[in-house]
């Protein structure tokens, strides 16, 4: 999934954002990347989506060798991952449905598949009935769910969430995290960048702490939530298998 070996990133102004980072994240893992501001978290994410190129080392993400990847192959790398942004990044002139469908249309998906798949992910994130709403007519939590649905709609191997709870209230944060855990339980790798340690402690998982561009801690912590509080899986639906089969065909 993600293999980094001795990766360093030095920006043109001389800032060494990542120093000799080595790590492996395997398929199906649930990983938190934590660290203070300026620790190197954003650079780490930028390297993953090839927004930036590492100065030294080796990086392989979802089968793509990012040190050798050609420019025209970058979109195909990005199609293997879904990104959830802290500020949601929704297009105001589009309603919920079109915001989600936009991610599929942007990669040339046939309209028939768009209709089926968007309907499915809207149900997954619990926004059924709100398809026609504009982003400004939704709460912060709902907007983040739209953003999550957009990240999910292309059925990525990996979800990268950059501070997904940063702009929403605690109750909604909990709900968004539950969705991410559910998505992970269905086999999708989830990488969450956050500085909210309460969230990390509540849900548990692998926690990688970055400080000063270096990995200073990499451990698995148990969730502090009781089994009753553990999220339930909402992803499987009668349509799910059918969707996956048809996508494979196409």
């Amino acid at each position, binding site marked *: 999934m993600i293999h980094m070996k001795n990766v360093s990133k030095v920006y043109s102004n001389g800032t060494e954002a990542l120093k000799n980072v080595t790590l492996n994240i395997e398929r199906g893992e649930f990983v938190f990347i934590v660290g203070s501001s300026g620790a190197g978290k954003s650079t780490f*994410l930028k390297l993953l989506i090839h*927004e930036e190129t590492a100065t030294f080392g080796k990086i392989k993400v979802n089968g793509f060798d990012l040190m050798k990847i050609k420019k025209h192959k970058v979109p195909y790398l*990005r199609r293997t991952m879904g990104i959830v942004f802290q500020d949601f990044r929704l297009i105001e002139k589009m309603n919920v449905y079109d915001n989600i469908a936009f991610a599929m249309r*942007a990669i*040339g998906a046939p309209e028939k598949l768009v209709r089926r798949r968007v309907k499915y992910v809207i149900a997954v994130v619990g926004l059924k009935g709100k398809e026609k709403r504009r982003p400004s007519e939704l709460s912060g939590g709902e907007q983040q769910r739209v953003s999550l649905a957009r990240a999910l709609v292309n059925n990525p191997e990996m979800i990268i969430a*950059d501070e997904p709870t940063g702009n929403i209230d605690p109750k909604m944060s909990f709900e968004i995290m539950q969705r991410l855990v559910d998505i992970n339980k269905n086999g999708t790798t989830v990488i969450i960048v956050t500085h909210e340690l309460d969230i990390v402690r509540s849900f548990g998982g692998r926690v990688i702490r970055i400080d000063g561009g270096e990995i200073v801690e990499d451990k698995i912590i148990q969730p502090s939530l009781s089994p009753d509080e553990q999220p339930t899986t909402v992803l499987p639906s009668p349509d799910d298998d059918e969707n996956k089969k048809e996508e494979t065909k196409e």
Partner: protein
Amino acid sequence: MKMKFNSSGYLVKEGLKNIWINRMMSLASIIVLVSCLIITGAAILISVNVNSLIASIGEGNQIKVFLDYELSDIDSIKLGAEIKKVENVQECRYYPKEEGIKEYKDRLGNLYESLQGEKNPLGNAYIVKLKDLSDYKDTIDQINKIKGVSSISDRGDIARTLTKLNAFVSVVGFWVVLILGVVTLFIISNSIKMTMYSRRFEISIMKSVGATNNFIRIPFIIEAMTIGLISGAIASAVLILAYNPIKNTAGQMITLISTSAIPLSAIWVNIIAGFCGAGVLIGALGGYISITKYLHKEGGDIIGW
């Protein structure tokens, strides 16, 4: 997820939608483009018509020798033989006054009759073609000396002036077309740049979900091509509507223009095809240049990351 590329309809729709969404900018671009295309088209049409005028006058080495009005037919034939003897004369064709008056009547129509009545004021003439234009003056002098020659209508000067004028119009036309072409390209690419700027957020999201540069580019190119096509259609309509009135007005001032000007029926298809084609081509090029430049620079990044 591997997606089948089946989105041409979506891309075209997006391109057309952009025109409406950015309608004020599109309208401004169309107005400026139409102006540029009209000026360019006018320069081309003037050049083409001057060429036609020159062709109607002849190659410049042809003169008309009018005979005395009273000269008998036999004397006229003798005079023709005399003209043929002049060294620099290549060809000498008899041009009877009936033919001459018919030509005038055809050109002037009712106007001629109202001025002249039924009387033919012309004499018989010869149309003489010269071998060498450098001996033009000497040859004219020699023919003038032949008894029975009344006057010589010499349109060579006009032809030479028009040839110079045409060369001038061609050079000016070339630069006008070139400069306005560049201006048009600049306008259309600027218009697309504005559209891109207003949609940079969407482009950024498209990049983050894995849209290829081509996929991002196509709607903008379609938008630019459509603006070019609309501008070309409007400009050609304006020129077609204005052509005949301008031709008629110019024809009233200079009779020759009314007979030599290219009729609209012969060129309207070319005008439409040329203008729409040029509009689409400039649009495609302008759109491609600006979106490619944008995607290679700031548009290549995901905003805010």
